[in-house]
């Protein structure tokens, strides 16, 4: 429990709801309702049903034999890449769309970086017949064209964010502005464990199904519910939070969060938030973010659009500060090589985001037979263009 949010919306020093008054009624309404709604029998029934029949859960826990052989340890992959729409993001959007219905909202907005969250949101909006508007940085629209097409095909309107770095943080600003201007009929489906309280907690709860299943699957396969190491990449931190959630209180489980170092931590083109950031407020919560001495947000960089974010969720900031999880970083090049290796050894092309987690295996030292679980947060279809260009395929 000590790693979870308190009644004021804080994880230690981090969290809260730093929002202008224009957003207060919506956030407050959500805060008062979310736990109650999520605990309703009917809600849970519908949520579980959709996770099973629509998303395709439980996602398999796959023993990666050849990777295990290479690294001399036992490696399992939590296959979020096999979910409908190809990433973990849909666990959260299925949950939030059911919540939005119960809040009486008619219009859904979302931000997206890699486009995975945008696609996952457009998907559930089509499923429920709700209007969907997705904000996406102009730069990301270019590098994730297939996802833009998927969103449009499912009836979503994709609006380019043209301010600032024209990536995820700017798309998030635009989504918040939209919500300010449409306070009554609209629900904002945030795509990660960021934003004002209660979003980080709500999204973590929806994603916690990842570790809930993993424990059961590990028990079946190894006889023990807990592994030695758990690895996940961190953009805002939702797949990592979902992967860590049910292991937080098992202090013997090593939790490792992998950030994007971009062209190198010292290169000026990086998204390694815990290394480069300081405490501050971004998008409604107090956390760790990359910023200048004057408190201006620094534009991040990563080859992977989903990790190209200058902050991390407040719960991650807390886990970092109290050292419950270890935060490390992986460069573009290391991630690309790891993606290729996974394709060659396991016949699985990972999303470049997830490939960052795989790359960390190179830096670990294993003694004997340790168990490692990696969150394979998404598949690489959306990244084929980037892979092709990088490897001259």
């Amino acid at each position: 429990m000590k790693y979870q949010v308190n009644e004021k919306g804080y994880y230690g020093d981090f969290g809260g709801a730093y929002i202008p008054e224009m957003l207060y009624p919506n956030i407050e309404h959500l805060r008062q309702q979310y736990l109650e709604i999520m605990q309703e029998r009917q809600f849970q029934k519908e949520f579980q049903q959709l996770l099973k029949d629509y998303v395709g859960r439980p996602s398999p826990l796959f023993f990666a034999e050849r990777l295990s052989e290479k690294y001399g340890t036992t490696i399992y992959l939590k296959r979020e890449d096999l979910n409908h729409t190809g990433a973990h993001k849909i666990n959260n959007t299925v949950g939030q769309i059911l919540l939005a219905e119960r809040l009486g909202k008619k219009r859904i907005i979302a931000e997206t970086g890699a486009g995975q969250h945008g696609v996952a949101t457009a998907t559930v909006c089509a499923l429920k017949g709700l209007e969907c508007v997705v904000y996406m940085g102009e730069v990301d629209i270019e590098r994730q064209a297939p996802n833009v097409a998927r969103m449009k095909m499912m009836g979503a309107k994709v609006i380019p964010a043209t301010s600032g770095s024209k990536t995820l943080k700017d798309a998030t600003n635009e989504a918040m502005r939209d919500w300010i201007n449409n306070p009554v009929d609209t629900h904002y489906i945030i795509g990660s464990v960021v934003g004002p309280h209660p979003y980080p907690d709500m999204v973590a709860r929806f994603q916690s199904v990842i570790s809930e299943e993993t424990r059961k699957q590990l028990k079946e396969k190894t006889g023990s519910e807990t592994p030695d190491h758990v690895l996940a990449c961190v953009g805002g931190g939702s797949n990592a939070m979902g992967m860590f959630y049910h292991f937080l209180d098992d202090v013997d489980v090593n939790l490792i969060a992998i950030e994007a170092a971009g062209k190198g931590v010292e290169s000026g083109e990086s998204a390694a938030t815990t290394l480069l950031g300081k405490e501050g407020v971004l998008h409604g919560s107090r956390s760790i973010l990359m910023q200048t001495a004057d408190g201006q947000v620094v534009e991040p960089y990563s080859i992977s659009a989903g990790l190209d974010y200058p902050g991390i969720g407040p719960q991650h900031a807390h886990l970092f500060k109290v050292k419950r999880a270890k935060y490390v970083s992986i460069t573009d090049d290391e991630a690309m090589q790891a993606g290729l290796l996974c394709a060659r050894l396991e016949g699985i092309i990972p999303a470049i985001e997830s490939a960052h987690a795989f790359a960390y295996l190179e830096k670990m030292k294993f003694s004997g037979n340790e168990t490692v679980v990696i969150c394979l947060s998404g598949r690489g279809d959306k990244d084929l263009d980037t892979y092709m260009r990088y490897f001259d395929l």
Partner: protein
Amino acid sequence: MNRLNQLFKNTSKPILSIYYTAGYPALESTLDIAEKLEQAGADFIEIGFPYSDPLADGPVIQNSSQKALENGMTLHVLFEQLKDLRKRVTIPVLLMGYVNPVLQFGVENFCKACAEAGVDGVIVPDLPMYEYEEMYKDYFIDNNLTNIFLVTPQTSEERIRKIDGLSNGFIYLLSSNSTTGKSTGISGDSETYFSRIQSMNLENPTMIGFGISDSTSFNKAAQYTRGAIVGSAFVKFLDTENALNQIPQFISEIRG
């Protein structure tokens, strides 16, 4: 009692406040604009300190903030410029901006720097009431700074009462739930909400902001409150040629 309280106490005509962004259009324009505004008859001013991610602002103020940052504006530069504030300007001055630059500056240091510069109050829209009360209120009080809260058409009566209790300058009523520069004019719905606030008989005076861009909206606002704040319309005006010398015309047109 600071300059702001005095203004509300001693003024009977509608009060006009102007918002603009420090360091825009040029890094050094901050005090020149303040001086011109006072000469032109503005009653008080709100100087925005820029932030890279102004999520409550529309394109006009986003743009002025970005330009100001490119021009080199920071809180340190601003306080350097404000050393001459009280040599050149006598009307009340508020600073307005987002919480993160203030946190990096240090809230206590920020409040002290405001007091030293002769700043009368602060508007930080994304500093929540809870955090203000629990962590920062004393710094404001020690430095005789007024913290201004916003109220929207959706703000509950209970919350407005609480805000009234925490305020000691004025309460900033948003004409509609929107980002800055979004709406123009005052709708019938807004008037219903202004009447509702008026009938609450709050301790603090109220001012209306957002959507005030001409004499019609200004004078309508003044029917329900002590006056109004013009932001985006003025910032947009600053982009026109020879704007600094046209400020008197701008102000007299708003007053109508």
